[in-house]
């Protein structure tokens, strides 16, 4: 068993392209976030020849940026103690850019992947799509107003802090998810003045302002945001807006693959995490962007039991 460090893998750890596709894999897992790690943890060596790939330089998905912050102790432990089962090949900074499902001529699924050395293909009898999602930017929700510097999502703000930079001085964090509030705490610790806000229809976690984001103001840097609070327009002077309204399923790379999506753009699966294509499964945020971490972990566990050849 090899211990997965939270620190970055070095390039030397990466296999050369030539050895990537010696023969087919039993399972290829796209993404190494919580759901994938949970699948690996439960499935272990029983999964057979397995490859896991992720765009990031570390495992843990988007969650990693919040670790080990308040309120994410369980997840942090899960990641910290995670053991990569023997024989599982982990490819970091390796991104799936396309999926060609099996057909009459080609009995295995093909993933087109790109990494530093170039583009290559991986073949696997079963594919588990566990690639999570990206954060909803203000543009996705068409929030009116200007386009100044200083508007960002939690992961961007956290990454900037981690690189040692202050993204602003006075921030409004819009959203009341665990992630949003933990981000607010981190920003406050870094020395920003932080105001939390969320729509009244939110999940009821305590925020300072209850209201709907109506407008983004200022140029070239953000100067204020306008919220509609109890039918009253309230202008809050901030130089930073952390737009924390959740995630979008990361399905952009599946264009043309034939994998069916829901109206909301997530991957459509049945109760057994099967997509419309035999041998292709999907778990975690990519099937339900609103999901909490416990559910991701559960899905990983459950799909491990369901994979033919997996543990039961």
């Amino acid at each position, binding site marked *: 068993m090899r211990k997965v460090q939270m620190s970055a893998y070095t390039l030397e750890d990466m296999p050369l392209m030539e050895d990537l596709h010696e023969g087919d894999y039993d399972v290829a897992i796209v993404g190494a976030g919580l759901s994938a790690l949970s699948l690996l943890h439960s499935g272990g060596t029983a999964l057979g020849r397995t490859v896991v790939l992720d*765009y990031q330089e570390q495992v843990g998905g988007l969650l990693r940026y919040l670790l*080990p*912050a*308040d*309120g*994410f*102790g*369980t997840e*942090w432990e899960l990641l*910290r103690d995670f053991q990569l089962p023997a024989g599982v090949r982990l490819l970091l*900074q*390796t*991104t799936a*850019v396309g999926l060609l499902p099996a057909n009459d001529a080609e009995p295995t699924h093909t993933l087109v992947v*790109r*990494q*530093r050395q*170039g*583009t290559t293909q991986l073949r696997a009898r079963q594919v588990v799509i566990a690639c999570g999602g*990206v*954060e909803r*930017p203000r*543009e*996705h929700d*068409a929030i*009116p*107003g*200007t*386009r*100044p*510097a*200083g508007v*960002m*999502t939690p*992961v*961007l703000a956290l*990454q*900037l*802090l*981690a*690189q*040692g*930079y*202050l*993204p602003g*001085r006075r921030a409004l964090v819009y959203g009341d998810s665990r992630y949003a509030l933990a981000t607010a705490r981190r920003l406050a*610790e*870094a*020395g920003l003045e932080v105001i939390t806000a969320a729509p009244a229809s939110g999940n009821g976690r305590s925020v300072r302002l209850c209201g709907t984001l109506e*407008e983004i*103001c200022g*140029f*070239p*840097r953000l100067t204020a945001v306008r919220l509609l609070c109890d039918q009253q327009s309230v202008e809050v002077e901030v*130089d930073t807006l952390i737009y924390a309204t959740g995630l*979008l399923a*990361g399905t*952009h*790379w599946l264009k043309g693959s034939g994998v069916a999506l829901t109206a909301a*753009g997530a991957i459509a699966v049945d109760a057994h995490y099967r997509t419309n294509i035999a041998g292709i499964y999907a778990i975690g945020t990519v099937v339900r962007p609103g999901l909490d971490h416990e559910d991701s972990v559960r899905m990983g566990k459950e799909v491990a039991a369901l994979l033919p050849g997996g543990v039961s």
Partner: protein
Amino acid sequence: MEMTSIDLDVDILVIGGGVVGCAILRELARYDASIALLEQYPDVCEGTSKANSAIVHTGFDARPGTLEARLLAEARQLWPEVIARLHIPYLQTGALMVALNEQEQATIAREIVPKAAANGITLQPLSRAEILEAAPYVNERIVGGVLVEGEGVIDPFWTTRAYCEHALLNGAQLFLGERVNAIEVGPRRLRVHTENGRTFSAALVVNAAGLWADEVARLAGDHSFKLTPRKGEFLITEEDHGVAQIILPVPSEVSKGILVTPIVFGGVLLGPTAEDVSDKRDLATTTAGQQRIREGVGRLVPAMTTVSTVRQFAGLRAVSSTGDYIIRPSTVSERLLHVAGIRSTGLSASPAIGHYVGTLVGETLGLRLRTSYREALPEPLSEAAHEDGEVVCLCRSITRGEILAALRSTLPPQTLDGLKRRTGAMLGECQGNLCLPRLIALFQQELGRDPLSLEKHAPGSRLLVERLTHLGSVPAHRCERSKRGQ
């Protein structure tokens, strides 16, 4: 861009690095003369040229007899060569103007077709069935329409940049981040001062300052024209939804109307609105504007009423009191040439505007053509060369190789938006929120840019305010606390 505060002497100075100024610079570079361009932003194409419908109009609906109509007609001849020589992404989609009722159908027959004929363009009438066959996504309730075969879509950023790069290749000089704030008119030379305290001296100055051209004219004491901003808001989708042609409504008096058009680098563009505003910097998008777009495009392509969008933006048309392009010497000096009021067709007419102005200036100053002129830009790097490296922009699968190629180009980006427009990174679903730190690191690595100085677009749009000294990494004890917290 290095220059001490000593004066720079050139023969010709162009103010404004939009599509018009850059097209002019490219044509001036043919002459045996020293030329330079001043742009207030840290990049070219930051004004109206970055926010438009990106259509290469044929000019079929221009007012016959105007300079605009004439230059659009000339541009039609010039485009194929410009696109080929500068390797500009362009799609000849054709445009379908669709009539939603008999009245609109009559307007097409009575006004649009004869006007197009006067502009030398034959429109092809199409029945309802023919339109729906060619463009099944169009509203079934249409009654007919016409095809404008020669219309297409282009990459406006690439176009502007390519003009500029071509001029640089032929010896032009570019000064970014130089805002002109004073002009002294002398009998033989003009002195142009910038906010940074620099002084440029030239025998002839071309005022191509877009929406601000009236203000630049005023700096020289010329109050002969006024420009007012007319805002156009847009929405952009990520998917193309089958839209393969430009779909135009039958136009009204005020504007060409709200249309649906494919984007040359993917997705669909919806808009623009047309609203007179008072502030020349008002680029805010509004709820009302977005609703108007949805209503407008819904009439043409019903699916667009509810389609999800990835981005919204607005551009400002420079509306002049004359209703035509203003291309003439200033009232205060023959040596100051205005190229202004290029309202809604500047991108389309740019090759011809460049040629017209270039010729005018060449004659005024009695210039000779340069002997060693390079007719084309070098071939862009092959796809394969760009593909090297891991994916940096996840949403759009843009690689490190593509980012590095942009950072190492002749006209490298100075801002994050500049990098976005050169590579397509940050244009996907997450709008750069995931990959931005990687891009900042590449800026630092390749161009030595201190992340603290990096701006999003305009001067003052810094992303980071300070370096953290006390919180470089998360202290270890936090893990302990977090365990208890759960």
